[in-house]
């Protein structure tokens, strides 16, 4: 598959025939700046699908972000472009600061997530689960991902904190024309944050998988094959 693609869909995210364990093959697309929701019962494979898109588990199929294919890119670079926010955050250094990349918008994001600026000096072991959840979003955004794969980003948060997270993700998405895939269990929230909602059931994906985004085949027709 070609490493670069012509056509529409600046910043678009294409998933072409991705299979992992009992899920797939699935194909769908998310336009740059668009947010889609993914729902399904527990154990249906929603998180597994996000892990496959981030290339964290062995899987088949192709994923293309903004014209660049996953297979043509080193995995660590791909994972910085496609930012996956797992349902449970994990930390490995002593302080918050050591996990964050310096970024001009960081202090603003931290403030919008309900933190004082000195939170970066905090030790990770004094953070509550909810604080870790919110800070893990700031940690992810500080790496400037070009797509967001969010696995229940507000699962451990109260209504106010959830509102902060929803608002920040929405602003980041529109400011940087970033495609967002939001996995969640709350149908009301998914319909609030996403323009389309897909459902993982019986190993497949149902719903409007392409919306207004052209399919990968449509987009790549005429593009040179490598």
């Amino acid at each position, binding site marked *: 598959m070609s490493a670069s693609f012509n056509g529409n869909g600046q910043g678009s995210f294409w998933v072409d025939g991705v299979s992992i364990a009992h899920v797939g093959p699935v194909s769908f697309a998310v336009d740059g700046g668009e947010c889609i929701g993914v729902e399904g019962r527990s154990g249906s494979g929603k998180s597994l699908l996000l892990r496959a898109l981030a*290339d*964290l588990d062995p899987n088949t199929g192709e994923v293309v972000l903004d014209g660049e294919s996953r297979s043509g890119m080193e995995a660590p670079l791909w994972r*910085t472009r496609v930012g996956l926010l*797992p349902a449970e955050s*994990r*930390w*490995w250094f002593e302080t918050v600061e050591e*996990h964050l990349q310096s970024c001009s918008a960081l202090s603003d994001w931290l403030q919008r997530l309900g933190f004082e600026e000195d939170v970066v000096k905090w030790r990770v072991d004094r953070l509550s689960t909810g604080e870790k959840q919110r800070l893990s979003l700031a940690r992810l955004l500080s790496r400037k991902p070009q797509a967001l794969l969010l696995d229940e980003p507000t699962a451990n948060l109260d209504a106010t904190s959830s509102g902060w997270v929803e608002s920040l993700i929405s602003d980041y998405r529109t400011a940087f024309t970033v495609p967002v895939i939001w996995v969640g269990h709350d149908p009301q929230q998914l319909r609030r944050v996403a323009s389309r909602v897909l459902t993982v059931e019986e190993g497949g994906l149902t719903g409007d998988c392409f919306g207004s985004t052209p399919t990968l085949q449509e987009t790549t027709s005429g593009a040179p094959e490598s």
Partner: protein
Amino acid sequence: MSILSLSPLDLAIASILILILALLSHLERLGIARTILWSAVRMAIQLMAIGVVLKALFEDLHPAWMIVMASIMLGVSGREVSKRQKQRFQKGWSYGIGTGSMFFSSFIVTAVAIFIVIQPDPWYTPQYLIPLLGMMLGNTMTAVSLGMDRLIQDVARDRMTVEARLLAGESWQQAITPYAQDAVRTGLIPTINSMAAAGLVSLPGMMTGQILGGNPPMLAVGYQILVMFMIAAGAGFGTIFSVKMASRRLFDERHRLRLDRLHKP
């Protein structure tokens, strides 16, 4: 100085101590009385067997026998390394990594000792080659198995943290580094401790054996220092090599943590 030989009766009297220990374990319901007795019997049989083999080797001096003996020792120690892992790699990778690391470290270090330091004539004189290689393999085996076990246990337990580091754009080498460092340290602790305590807290087994066997203490000390250097180097090289190999095996070419390559615990 004359050497006092041990009769079977002397050994039988010493074995009474083991019987008492087993009885005490039974009375205290520790559940290890049988294991103690079986280990003691197994140890006696193994040592008598090696005694017979060494006697035969001493009488029929040929390098081919040395190579056969060294290969058997290496194969058995590789199996021991694999057995001591709580979680092993599938498809014999634990055995392969363990045996490969011990071959790489023990054989090279023993070769240095034989060809450069001691220089016996001929080089395959079993009196030097077999005991030195045995001690190297025994100690390297402990270090390698401790290091590999620690690495795999820690990474399996911290799977989500390792994956969080990968998601942050780290390569597998960056994500595994703190775990690999801890694993190497763990593997080398017994060796470092035994070097630190040698002569102050404990008299090392080889030196004690030589002194009991009638050799002058300073000669025994000289050999013990040589052996300590060899063991430290061999255990260090073996542990570093095995932890590097095991670390590589834990990830694939797409920098994905592959715990599915381990047998289920």
